[in-house]
């Protein structure tokens, strides 16, 4: 690269006679990007006055950077009307000087150089302050209700259809002398849906241990296998039947999505489970599993947070937990007041979202339609509070 480190007055050198001259950009400013690890510098400028919508002479802009007083390097080419750029490739301990060239068909027209900038890193990302407060607010709400419930106050939570059916479904398997099949989705332990599935397994397997039914649990991740065994073992212990537990209840098949499905399908066709639980993160396999389960006449209780798979669960299963209900299920099933408290906390978050949406829409509408200044400020404030980047 190494464009000559030209001062703006020398630009004429680039342009031969009769060439297209473009005014350089103005008010170029370089600032350390706030609240980061010292990895970025923000540039802003006023575009060239020759950058017009029609008959524009400016083709765009090229950003140059000089590191520690060395050679100028071109960083990026930007389209017309660009007025800002973030250089995300700086390092702490160096000083950076920038200039921006306006591009024309016959050459470049550089701006003045900025003052040197030294990127710094900050201890706390204050631009995420609002996010932090909202996180605290929701957490506090959850903890508050958990505490309230612990002190014995009764909390109301509405009925969730699929969950009422779990005991019956397990009982049915016992009566028929056929096993229960529990599929915790195909994601690994680094997915909260899998965690939710395993917590539900904790409650379901207690019932299974009580009824002395048989449970099969083929899994597609080794870590899930380990965790599921821990879960089952604990349930059987707390049901007072540790002897009935065996590691063989949970077995690993393969990590491959459809290899796993092929095996589970085969298992369903041969073992004919009376009850099938499909809870967790499901992808394309949802329908194959649900349809095969249906064809062997099992009662099926399903739940996932993947919207694309939910219609098939709704169609082919007897009960379906939709999205958030999957996460609420373990708390609900436990019947433990503290857990129900956390659902209340969740509702506080929902109420907050609804209020913000309502107020925001009213404010925006009033400011857009009738030009009410206060409302515009309110809207701008809400948008700022809820922006994440």
């Amino acid at each position, binding site marked *: 690269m190494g464009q000559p480190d030209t001062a703006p007055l020398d630009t004429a050198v680039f342009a031969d006679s009769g060439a297209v001259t473009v005014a350089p950009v103005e008010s170029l400013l370089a600032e350390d990007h706030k609240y980061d690890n010292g990895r970025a510098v923000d540039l802003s400028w006023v575009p060239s006055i020759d950058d017009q919508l029609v008959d524009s002479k400016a083709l765009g802009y090229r950003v140059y950077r000089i590191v520690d007083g060395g050679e100028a390097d071109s960083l990026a080419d930007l389209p017309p009307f660009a007025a800002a750029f973030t250089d995300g490739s700086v390092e702490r301990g160096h000083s950076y000087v920038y200039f921006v060239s306006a591009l024309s068909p016959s050459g470049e027209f550089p701006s003045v150089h900025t003052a040197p900038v030294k990127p710094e890193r900050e201890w706390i990302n204050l631009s995420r302050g609002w*996010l932090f407060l*909202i*996180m605290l607010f*929701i957490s506090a709400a959850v903890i508050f209700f958990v505490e309230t419930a612990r002190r014995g106050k009764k909390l*109301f*939570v*509405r009925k*969730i259809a699929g969950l009422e059916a779990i005991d019956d479904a397990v009982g049915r398997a016992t009566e028929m002398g056929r096993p229960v099949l529990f599929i915790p989705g195909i994601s690994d*332990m*680094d*997915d*909260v849906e899998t*965690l939710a599935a395993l917590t539900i397994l904790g409650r379901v397997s207690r019932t299974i241990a009580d009824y002395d039914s048989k449970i099969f649990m083929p899994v597609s991740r080794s*870590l899930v296998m*380990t*965790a599921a065994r*821990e879960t089952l073992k604990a349930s059987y212990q707390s049901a007072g039947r540790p002897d009935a537990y065996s590691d063989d209840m949970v077995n690993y098949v*393969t*990590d*491959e999505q*459809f*290899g796993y499905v*092929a*095996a589970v*399908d*085969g298992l369903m*066709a*041969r073992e004919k489970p009376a009850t099938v639980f499909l809870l967790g993160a499901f992808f394309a396999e949802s*329908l194959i599993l649900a349809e095969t389960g249906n064809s062997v006449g099992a009662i099926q209780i399903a739940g996932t947070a993947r*919207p*694309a798979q*939910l*219609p*098939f669960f709704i169609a082919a299963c007897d009960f379906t937990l*939709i*999205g*958030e209900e999957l996460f*609420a299920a373990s708390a609900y099933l436990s019947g433990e007041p503290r857990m129900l408290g956390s659902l*209340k906390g969740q*509702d506080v*978050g*929902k*109420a907050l979202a*609804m209020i*913000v*949406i*309502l107020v*925001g*829409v009213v*404010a*925006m*509408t009033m400011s*857009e*339609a009738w*030009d009410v200044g206060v409302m515009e400020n309110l809207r701008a404030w*809400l*948008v700022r509070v*809820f*922006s*994440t980047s």
Partner: protein
Amino acid sequence: MEHFALWLGAFLTLGILSFLYKDNAWYKLSEAVFVGISAGFWFATLFWDNLVGKFWDGKGEEPMLWVGAALGLLMLFRLLPKVGWLSRWPLAFIVGATSGLWLMNYLASNIMSQVQATILPVFSSGFGAGFDADLATIVGNLVIFVGTFTGLVYFFFSKEHKGVFGGAARVGIFFIMITFGASFGYTVMSRMSLLIGRIDFLLGDWLGMIG
């Protein structure tokens, strides 16, 4: 070899398809091959990509990788009955980290951004004057606002779905059902495409009947 490869692929393809008729020996064979081959595939892949690629190659530059190795080793303690309980530590670690990470990611991406994106104008005093939105945009915004709002009402756990609240929840479930319908439609589209791809293999690549 090329002929053999094609026939092998076709044999396995038809084996899996035969499950549609009923569970049979051909399917069971294909299933067993699939389970074995794919478990072996992931075993080799994780070995080279994760164990060698991540840990062995990088351990010099990044000493923190040893922590991962230690956690992995604790995991393997499961094989020894006496100290098997130690494997709960890496599990506890993973569960904790997952919870913390996803808590923030979902709060930011799923909640904050989506709430912010729903703040839309739903009326205009003079279309085109000062605020240039046409009727379609306004109607669209209104529908988005109502749908999102009532959808949230549906998921509210602390209140029985009765009265005005129940009415709103019902509108909410309507929107959720439309969402599922659209998902269903798109899924049909997707699955049919995949079948087309497979038939293209059987009739095109294998039997050369289509171009």
